[in-house]
C-alpha cells in the first residue's frame, strides 16, 4: 500500500483549521498546560514545613518552657499558642487550626529529674495522612533529639561527660538534594499534559466526524486509514511537542527545575510517549463514535492513570499487588521513569533503554490497533 503525503497533508490541514477556529481547543491545547505547569510549579506542593503546634503546659517549669522554646525555634514547627487544657487543644484540632497538640502533664520535670520516664501526650491530626505521617516523623525525631540532650545532662551529672555517641547517621540526599517536591512534580506534569493533549483532545476528532455525519464523505474519498489517522494526529503532535518545550523552558526559567540529562533523549522519549497517547486517543474515538463517551473513556484510561498509576505522586509500591500489575501497562509509568532519570538521576541510555523499548512497543501496538479498527469501519 502506498502512502500519499498529499492526502496526509490535506487531512492535517483540515484538522488544523478546526483547532484554530475554535478558541476552546486552543485553550485546551495551550492555556490548560500552561495553567497546570504554573499551578504545579508555583502553588502545589506536598512538602510539609511549619507544622502548626499548640501546647498545653500543665507542668510550667523551666524545662517545659525550654522544650516549648526549642520547638518554636525549630524550622519544622510553628508554635501557635499555649492553651489552658486538653479540651481547648482538641477544639483547635477539630477546627483544623493546628496539626499537632502537645500536652505536657503535671510533675513532668519532677519525673525527669528523678530519672523516671515522663510521658508526653502528642495528638496529631492525621485526617490528611501525608501531612499526618510527616508531622509524626518530625515530632518523634524532635523528642528523640531532646532525649539525647537529657541523656547528655544525665551523663555529665554522673561524671561521664566525655562519653560520645557511638554511631552517627550522616545523611546525604541524592537526586533531589533540597528535597523539593517541585523537582519531581514539574517533570511529572509533562506526562499528564501530553495525555490531555494527545489522548483527550484526539479522542474527540474521529467521533466528531461520525456525529456530524461527515464520516460518510471521508469514506468515499480515495484515502487510506493510515493516511487519514496520520493526518489527524499531526496537528496534535505538533501542539503537544510545543507544550513539552514550553514546560521545559518554564520549569527551568521560573522554577529552577533543571534537566540534568540529555535534551535529545528527552525529545525522543516525549515523541514516543506522545505517539502512544495519539494512538490511544484515536482508537477510543473510532471505537466509541460519540464525543461525550469518548471524552469520558479517555479521561478514565489516559488522564487518570497518568496522574494516579504512574509513580507520579503516589508511589506504586504502596498499591495492592493487582494494581501494581496494572501500572505496568500504563505508558506514563515508563515515561515518568525516563523523566526521573533525565531530570533527577542524570543517567543515560544504558540505564533507561528498557523504558524506551516498552514505549516503542506500546506505540506500535496502539497505532496498529487504531489502523485496524479504522479499516474495519470501512476506510
Amino acid at each position: 500500500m502506498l502512502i500519499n503525503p498529499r492526502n496526509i497533508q490535506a487531512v492535517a490541514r483540515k484538522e488544523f483549521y478546526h483547532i484554530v477556529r475554535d478558541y476552546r481547543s486552543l485553550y485546551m491545547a495551550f492555556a490548560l498546560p500552561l495553567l497546570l505547569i504554573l499551578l504545579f510549579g508555583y502553588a502545589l506542593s506536598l512538602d510539609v514545613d511549619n507544622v502548626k503546634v499548640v501546647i498545653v503546659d500543665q507542668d510550667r517549669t523551666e524545662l517545659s518552657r525550654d522544650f516549648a522554646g526549642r520547638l518554636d525555634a525549630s524550622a519544622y514547627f510553628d508554635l501557635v499558642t499555649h492553651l489552658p487544657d486538653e479540651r481547648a487543644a482538641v477544639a483547635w484540632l477539630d477546627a483544623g487550626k493546628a496539626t499537632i497538640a502537645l500536652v505536657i502533664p503535671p510533675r513532668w520535670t519532677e519525673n525527669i529529674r528523678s530519672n523516671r520516664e515522663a510521658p508526653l501526650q502528642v495528638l496529631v491530626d492525621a485526617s490528611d495522612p501525608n501531612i499526618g505521617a510527616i508531622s509524626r516523623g518530625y515530632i518523634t525525631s524532635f523528642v528523640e533529639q531532646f532525649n539525647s540532650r537529657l541523656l547528655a545532662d544525665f551523663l555529665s551529672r554522673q561524671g561521664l561527660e566525655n562519653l560520645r555517641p557511638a554511631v552517627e547517621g550522616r545523611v546525604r540526599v541524592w537526586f533531589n538534594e533540597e528535597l523539593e517536591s517541585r523537582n519531581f512534580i514539574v517533570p511529572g506534569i509533562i506526562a499528564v499534559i501530553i495525555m490531555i493533549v494527545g489522548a483527550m483532545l484526539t479522542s474527540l476528532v474521529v467521533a466528531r466526524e461520525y456525529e456530524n455525519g461527515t464520516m460518510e464523505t471521508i469514506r468515499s474519498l480515495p484515502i487510506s486509514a493510515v493516511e487519514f489517522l496520520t493526518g489527524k494526529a499531526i496537528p496534535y503532535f505538533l501542539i503537544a511537542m510545543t507544550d513539552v518545550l514550553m514546560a521545559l523552558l518554564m520549569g527551568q526559567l521560573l522554577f529552577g527545575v533543571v534537566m540534568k540529562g540529555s535534551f535529545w533523549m528527552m525529545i525522543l522519549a516525549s515523541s514516543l510517549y506522545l505517539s502512544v497517547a495519539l494512538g490511544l486517543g484515536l482508537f477510543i474515538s473510532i471505537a466509541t463514535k460519540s464525543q461525550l463517551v469518548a471524552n469520558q473513556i479517555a479521561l478514565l484510561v489516559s488522564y487518570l492513570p497518568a496522574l494516579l498509576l504512574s509513580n507520579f505522586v503516589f508511589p506504586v509500591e504502596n498499591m495492592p499487588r493487582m494494581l501494581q500489575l496494572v501500572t505496568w501497562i500504563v505508558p506514563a509509568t515508563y515515561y515518568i521513569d525516563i523523566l526521573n532519570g533525565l531530570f533527577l538521576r542524570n543517567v543515560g541510555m544504558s540505564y533507561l533503554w528498557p523504558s524506551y523499548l516498552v514505549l516503542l512497543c506500546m506505540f506500535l501496538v496502539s497505532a496498529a490497533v487504531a489502523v485496524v479498527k479504522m479499516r474495519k469501519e470501512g476506510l
Partner: protein
Amino acid sequence: MNRIRIREIVRKEFIQLFRDRKNRPILFVMPFIQLLIFGYVVSTDVRDVKVGLLDQSRTRESRLVRDAFEGSPIFRITHRADDPRELEELLLRRKVDIAIKIGPDFSERIRKGETAAVQVLADGSMSNLAGVRIAYTLQVLEKLNQDFIRELVPQRIDYGRIDARVRTWYNPNLESRDFFVPGMVAVLIMIISLLFTSMAIIKEKEVGTMEQLIVTPMRPFELIFGKTIPYILISIAQMVAVTLFAVFWFDIPMRGSAGLLLLGVCLFLISNLGIGLFVSTISATQQQAMLTTFFFIVPFFMLSGFVFPIENMPLVVQGLTYLNPLRYMLVIIRGIFLKGVGMTVLWPQYLALVILGVLVFAGAVGRFRKRLD
C-alpha cells in the same frame, strides 16, 4: 411558574437521558471505577522502605546495625553490596530507597569510645516520602546509639527521658483511603453535575430543538428548573450510592450526621448547576462544552486541597481557592466522615457554599435568560 410544565420537562429529560444507552456507563459505572482507583491507589504512606547495605566492617557491631534495620517493621534490606560502586548503582537503578554504608573502621572506633559514622544515602526524588524515610532512619540509629551506650557504660543508665505517646487522630492508622475516598465522593458529584447540566442544554441547541422550546409558552425559569432538577436528583442519588459504597466496601467510618452531608451536597449542587448553565451559555457544540467544563474541573480539583494542601500554596493562590466551591465541600465531607464534627465547626463552610451558590446561579440564570429572550 407552572408546576406541570416543569414536571413535563423533567420527565422528558429523564426519558432522553436513559434512552441513550451510551450515557449509562458514564452515569453508573464510571463513578465506581474512579472510586475504586482512588480507594486503592492513592497512598503516600511510608511503609516498606527498601534498603541496600554495604558492610565493610563485618563485625558484631556492624551486624547490630543490620539487625536494627531488619527488626524495624518499616525497613527491609533487599540488597547487599560488596563495594561502594555497587551501592551507588543500586540507587541509580532505583532498586533501593536508602543505601547504608558502614565503613571498615566502624567497630574499632566504637570500641575506642569514638563516634563511628554510618553513611546514609537517600533517594530524594520523591521528596515527601524521602523526608519521612530519613526521619525513620535517624530514629533507628538513635535507638541503636542508646543500646551501645548501655553496653559501654558499666553502671545502669536509667535517665529520665520523655516518652512521646503519639496518637494520630481522626485517622489512627494513617489510611490514605479514609482521606481520599470521601473527597472523591465530592469530586464525582462535581464532575457529573457540571458535565451533564451543560450537555443537556447544548444538545437542544445542537439538534435545533432549543428554538422549539423557546416558542412554547414555557417561561425561562421553568425551562431552567426543568433542565436542572433531573441532575439534582441524579447527583443526590449518586451521592447516596457512592457514600454507601465508601462505607460498606471500603469501611470508611462515617462519624458525623448523614443529614448534614445531604444538606452540604444540595448547597454544593447550586454552584455546580450554576456553572453548568453558564458553560452552556458560552458554548455552541458538545465539544466546546466538554472542553470548557474540563477547564473548570482541573483547577477546581487541583486548588481544593483534595491532594495538595491549601496551607502550602502561596497566599495569592490561597485567596483564589475561596472561589472554589469544592474547597468548602471537601472540608464539610471530610469533617463529617473523619472528625464527626457538626454545624458548630462547619457553619462557615455552609455559609460560604450558600453565598457562592446564590451568586453563581443568579449570574448564570441572568445570562441564560438573556440568551433566550
